[in-house]
């Protein structure tokens, strides 16, 4: 499924060729639209020639609709696309500065490259200026490093800001763009061609424009009504290799191995306990975190989870395995790495690292007992205060040796591939 890691899958030569071809398309379209000419670019800011606005917003809207339509159809995983992290105030100040630079210099970095390529001398000088400005920034950024890294909001998209669905946001952006285009056309006639206001027709006379607008709105409505893939959808589309891993129990780890991981100073461990609050309070592993299926559907929770360092092992556990397995699928579908299931769940853990009989005893497995029942009866709720929550390597290994338990080691740390974008 797209996106692809082109360089990783096809090698640097082909991968970099793809980047080159994309750039070729980029440069050609910019030049064809007239963006090699600084006068045309500057005219935007006097309302005489709204080409910049039209090209930019048309491009944004077309790309956006394609991206989210493909995502709705399951052909593109939006979660794996690079979304520029939001640093709100540096972005605002940077934008204002760039606006000034744009109208003073007559270009932006991308268009100056196109101007340079078509021998415009002002473009060449501008591009040199950009390199100089970038150099000065590098030299001086340490002075205001704090501000430069402030108001960090991570991956934050407009639907989250406004609390609407992605599809609705797409439709709203399309409508906003169409309204802007309508007024841009009128502004050009008034300021550019100096047409008297009364003479400017109210309806866009051009049939092509109306048809194109209708197509855009149609696509946006499609996105709106299809909805974006749920975590369940994502698992269902994940592909055979992952499903086999689950079936072959490649990702079920024995309590003995989890013990090692928990006590490994070179690793971080995130323990996700998907049991009821009651069971969790009775007993849970040291530093385990209680989660619900609702959490797994919550984007803030998922963002927090994915922000963990590279060398983090995530283990999900329930009393037996049923719920943990469901949770595993939903988490894995959303791309959680180094994810494992505690084999046999907490029931198995307590079987291996048995607590003192005065604290808990194993109950009889009755006939009417549910799949995920907690088999241990506790004299009081101990949470993670007893030794069994983390027996420690010495005691734990001793216990395992003593009982002759052998297990297969399955944990393999997979490095997260950092998403990167065009301007990094």
């Amino acid at each position: 499924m797209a996106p692809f890691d082109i360089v990783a899958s096809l090698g640097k030569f082909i991968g970099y060729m793809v980047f080159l071809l994309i750039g070729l398309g980029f440069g050609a379209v910019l030049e064809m639209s007239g963006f090699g000419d600084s006068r045309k670019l500057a005219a935007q800011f006097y309302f005489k020639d709204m080409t910049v606005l039209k090209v930019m917003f048309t491009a944004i809207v077309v790309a956006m609709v394609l991206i989210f339509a493909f995502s709705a159809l399951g052909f593109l995983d939006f979660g794996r696309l690079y979304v520029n992290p939001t640093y709100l105030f540096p972005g605002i100040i940077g934008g204002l500065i760039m606006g000034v630079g744009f109208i003073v210099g007559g270009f932006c970095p991308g268009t100056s490259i196109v101007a340079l390529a078509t021998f415009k001398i002002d473009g060449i000088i501008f591009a040199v200026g950009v390199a100089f400005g970038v150099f000065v920034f590098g030299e001086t950024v340490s002075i205001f490093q704090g501000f430069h890294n402030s108001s960090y909001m991570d991956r934050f998209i407009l639907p989250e800001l406004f609390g609407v669905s992605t599809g609705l946001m797409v439709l709203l952006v399309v409508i906003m763009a169409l309204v802007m285009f309508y007024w841009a056309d009128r502004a050009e006639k008034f300021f550019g061609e100096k047409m008297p206001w009364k003479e400017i027709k109210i309806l866009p006379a051009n049939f092509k424009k109306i048809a194109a607008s209708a197509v855009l709105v149609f696509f946006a409505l499609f996105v709106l009504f299809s909805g974006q893939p749920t975590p369940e959808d994502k698992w269902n589309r994940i592909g055979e290799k992952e499903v086999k891993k689950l079936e072959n129990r490649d990702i079920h780890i024995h309590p003995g191995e989890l013990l090692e991981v928990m006590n490994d100073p070179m690793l971080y461990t995130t323990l996700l306990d998907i049991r009821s609050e009651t069971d969790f309070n009775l007993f849970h592993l040291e530093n385990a975190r209680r989660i619900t299926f609702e959490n797994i559907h919550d984007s803030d929770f998922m963002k927090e989870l994915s922000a963990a360092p590279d060398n983090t092992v995530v283990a999900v556990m329930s009393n037996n395995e049923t719920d943990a397995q469901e949770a595993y699928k939903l988490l894995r579908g959303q791309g959680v790495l180094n994810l494992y299931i505690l084999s046999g769940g907490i029931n198995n853990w307590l079987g291996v690292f048995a607590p003192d009989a005065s604290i808990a005893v194993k109950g009889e497995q009755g006939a009417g007992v549910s799949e995920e029942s907690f088999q241990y009866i506790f004299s009081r709720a101990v949470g993670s205060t007893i030794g069994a929550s983390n027996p420690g390597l010495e005691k734990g290994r001793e216990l395992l040796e003593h009982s002759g338990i052998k297990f297969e080691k399955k944990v393999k740390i997979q490095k997260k591939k950092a998403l990167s974008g065009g301007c990094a």
Partner: protein
Amino acid sequence: MPGKITEEKMSNNNKESYINPYLGGTLLGIVLFSAYFLTGGGLGASGAINRIQVFFVDLFAGGHVDQVGYFAKLAGGESNPLDAGIVLMLVGTFLGGMLSGLYNKRLKFETRKGPNISTKQRWLFAFIGGAVMGYGARFARGCTSGQALSGGAVLSVGSWAFMFCIFIGGYAMAWFVRKLWR
């Protein structure tokens, strides 16, 4: 009509065969989409310019590069800052611009400027504008291509805020520098 005769047109589009902006935007949108589809990231320019600039500084002042955090990230020690897809993308952008210019007979050594300033003045402001742009682009972690276009298409809040600020900044400044263009 009186308004049109005295003032040289702001934009030259009655002579040049530029394509319709909406068509241009659609094509650009398709290019942008294919960038995301094929590579997981969008378009960009300032990031690549940064890498090229660091490469040259590294040639002459390698030790210095190792000491400035912002540069060392890209070119410290043995790292080659040019070893990145976006640098190839910039090369492609350059070639694409040149090819289109060649095809449309728009390859010409000239300086585009307003009628009321000299060529040398235009060059000065082009450099200043470029420097300001370069500085601002790193501040904002991207330029119009990388942040506004690309980030805009994936609905990043920061990118949209950034994009509106570019327009605000440009329009606010426009009256003060009108001599450059009119």
